[in-house]
């Protein structure tokens, strides 16, 4: 286990660097001059003054060889400085942290809601195994995977904001504004979580100690609460960790439709504006967090499933 941890930590650093380098290349391989893109993102209008372009190229050092620029960035990053955003000239950290905070709260709300719904639905389905309720729950939650969010989101806005005027159509200010985006984001996790909970509860129900408890005359309700649920929920913990990682930068469409300035939106804008330091900082944070979370999830998973260990032996 210690070896596993050591290897993971070492490779973790490498993978984050890999990601940062990939992002670093964006403005150099995409068409259009980086300096012009930066200027356009600051002042509107099509005509760009040639002298300004040259001055900016020199000042930002984007005319230097690629590797020089990358090493310069790496050196600063090593000392905790993510640099200044090209477009806003403010520290990247100051932009990444608020965005990260918004995305984190959105992801936590999404996964919390998804877990709650899934535990209820999954347990109900397992307890009714094979009956109509089970089939209904299973089919409906499976259908959730197939709903395109770019379709559901506008339709929900149409109904709840425009027709019924009960929820805000956009923004990120308070619980009411979170309802629609969280609903849209939670559907897919609910689908996966429900089936995991259902399987977990079914396994637990057939486990020896549960059968024994039942035969000792313990009530059905108590058995479920005391013995079945704790085991049934185990798979959810690792699943949630992995989903957490996936949602960090994966909610671009929802963030855009609902005008939420989270990480997905930040990265998207940064790529479009050739704001290299911002894109790099953002990607390193997202990928770093995601990799740490995936590692943690795998770790928990291995502890729970000793057979996996053979794979890394």
């Amino acid at each position, binding site marked *: 286990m210690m070896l596993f941890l050591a290897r993971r930590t070492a490779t973790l650093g490498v993978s984050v660097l890999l990601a940062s380098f990939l992002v670093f290349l964006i403005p150099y391989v*995409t*068409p*259009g*001059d980086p300096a*012009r*893109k*930066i*200027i*356009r*993102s*600051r*002042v*509107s*209008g*099509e*005509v760009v*003054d*040639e*002298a*300004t372009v040259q*001055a*900016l190229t020199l*000042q930002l050092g984007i005319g230097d060889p690629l590797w020089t620029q990358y090493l310069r960035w790496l050196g600063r990053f090593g000392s905790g400085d993510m640099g200044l955003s090209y*477009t*806003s*000239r*403010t520290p990247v950290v100051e*932009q990444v942290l*608020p*965005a990260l905070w918004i995305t984190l709260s959105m992801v936590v709300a999404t996964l919390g809601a998804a877990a709650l719904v899934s535990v209820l639905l999954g347990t109900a389905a397992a307890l009714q195994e094979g009956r109509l309720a089970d089939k209904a729950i299973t089919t409906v939650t499976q259908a959730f995977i197939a709903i395109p969010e*770019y379709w559901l989101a506008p339709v929900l*806005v149409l109904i709840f*904001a*425009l027709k019924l*005027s009960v929820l*805000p*159509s*956009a*923004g*990120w*200010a308070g619980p009411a504004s979170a309802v629609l985006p969280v609903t849209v984001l939670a559907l897919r996790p609910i689908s996966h979580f429900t089936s995991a909970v259902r399987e977990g509860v079914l396994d637990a129900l057939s486990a020896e100690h549960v059968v024994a408890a039942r035969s000792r005359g313990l009530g059905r309700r108590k058995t479920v609460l005391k013995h079945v649920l704790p085991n049934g929920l185990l798979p959810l913990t690792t699943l949630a960790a992995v989903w957490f990682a996936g949602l960090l930068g994966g909610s*671009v*469409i929802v963030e*855009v*439709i609902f*005008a939420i*300035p989270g990480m997905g*939106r930040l990265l*998207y*804008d940064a790529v*479009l*504006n050739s704001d290299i330091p911002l894109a790099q900082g953002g990607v390193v944070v997202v990928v770093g967090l995601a990799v740490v979370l995936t590692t943690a999830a795998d770790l928990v998973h291995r502890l729970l499933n000793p057979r996996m260990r053979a794979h890394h032996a």
Partner: protein
Amino acid sequence: MRALLRSSAAMGLVAVLALSGCGFSGEGESPQAADLDQRIVVDNFRAPVADWALESDAAYILSLSGCLETLTRYDEAAGKIVPSLATGWEQVSDLEWDFTLRDGVKFQDGTALTADTVVNSLRTVLEAEVPARAFNPTVVSGVEAIDERTVRITTPTESPLVPYRLASVNTGVLAPAAFEGETVDPFGHCTGPFTPVSEKPKQSLTLDRNEDYWGGQVQLAGAEVRFITDGATRATQVQTGEADVSLSIPVSSLSALEADENVKVLKADSPRTATLYMNNGKAPFDDVEFRQALRAALDLNTLAGSVYEGAALPASGPFAPSEPWAIEGAQTPQQDVEAARQLLAAAGYTAGRPLEIIAIVERAEFADVATVIQENLKAVDVPVKIRTAEYAAVEPDLLSGDYDMVLSQRNRLIDIADPIGFLTADYTCDGGYNLSHFCDEDYDKLIAQAARTADTQERYRLYAEAGKILQDQAVNIWLVNEQAIDAVRANLGSHVQDPLARYVLRAETTKSGS
């Protein structure tokens, strides 16, 4: 949601600016109905990208928020420059202009407005890394305080346009304290009717009434300006009442808003004309008859009525008819398939390779416009294919002349309320943005003459004459004149639409209680 591609950068290109004013002032509401405790929400189409740097487009946000004010203002209705923080100005020599400051103006932090504070603010903009187009070292060589109340602006060449430049929002004035930190801090450092008090980065700016405003009692208690880049969302929010003012409404949302009795839709001509640029330097577009043939083949009336939902008018040439330099007697070209065929034959054109129209994605409707043009040209046997692309990706090809046609639009008045910059950059032989690769001696002479002409009427006449050359030679096909469309809640009072989206929150703005 193509709007996704409208990043804040793209939004810059798309910024709707316009020329003539149009407004209403809360009919049927007596001034007494104004409720001094009301706050309103304004949905703006862009977010500040460069923190609050005045040389960036963030200045537009500070200005429409009623925070930032300039020395002069361009009065849309009167069509001239009027006093604001400066009460008067005069040209004291060929290269020097003196501006006299208004007495008794205080910044929101209590500092007095003096020549020194103005010079400090203007110099910051002049020395910026990426200077504003309206106010940069190429057009302004110096800013200095002559005395307590007089600021002198020096230009490198004689220019009648200096007062126009000081109406640009980029020349807004902030107190010295705003520039003490690493970045510009406008909070409490403006002169306007509203004081910014807090911001949620990339989301919104909250403002309170400036109790001590030089222009009189401010009616609203405060406001929130939200940055909503998606047009459909802005339209939705003014319908639901989440927003009281939504700027720049997409034409596709127009009919829904017009049907809503709680919403008023305001429209004004904009200095933007959707244009089919043609590469005059490349066959077959190097033949004027071929270009005229394409123009005759297009049905601009139907285009304006369908894709633009009637919210844009078919264009009659490079200028909108309401502009003071409009070409007299200009008519919208009518579709004439027979004439188009004859012109094509005269040009010796035979259908060969499909010609490519590039539709830039920053404007969602251009893909549809291209599709309609494609059908129009199919009727005269000119095969066309369409490519959508991000503007930045195709710009090098456009500038180097490696393209057939591109659908784009451009703000004629991007820097100042005068089209000289546009006419020079876009159509003179050495123009820096001559996408059409057009070059005509007579045209260049007219523009050079206009640049030296101080008399406004004479200058406008020269512009019109130059515009006529462009139209006669069918340099491009000007499709429709776009309109600036804003939507406001019906209970908003004394609101005046500024088609340039610079002045939205004013001291007079009111909202009646609901």
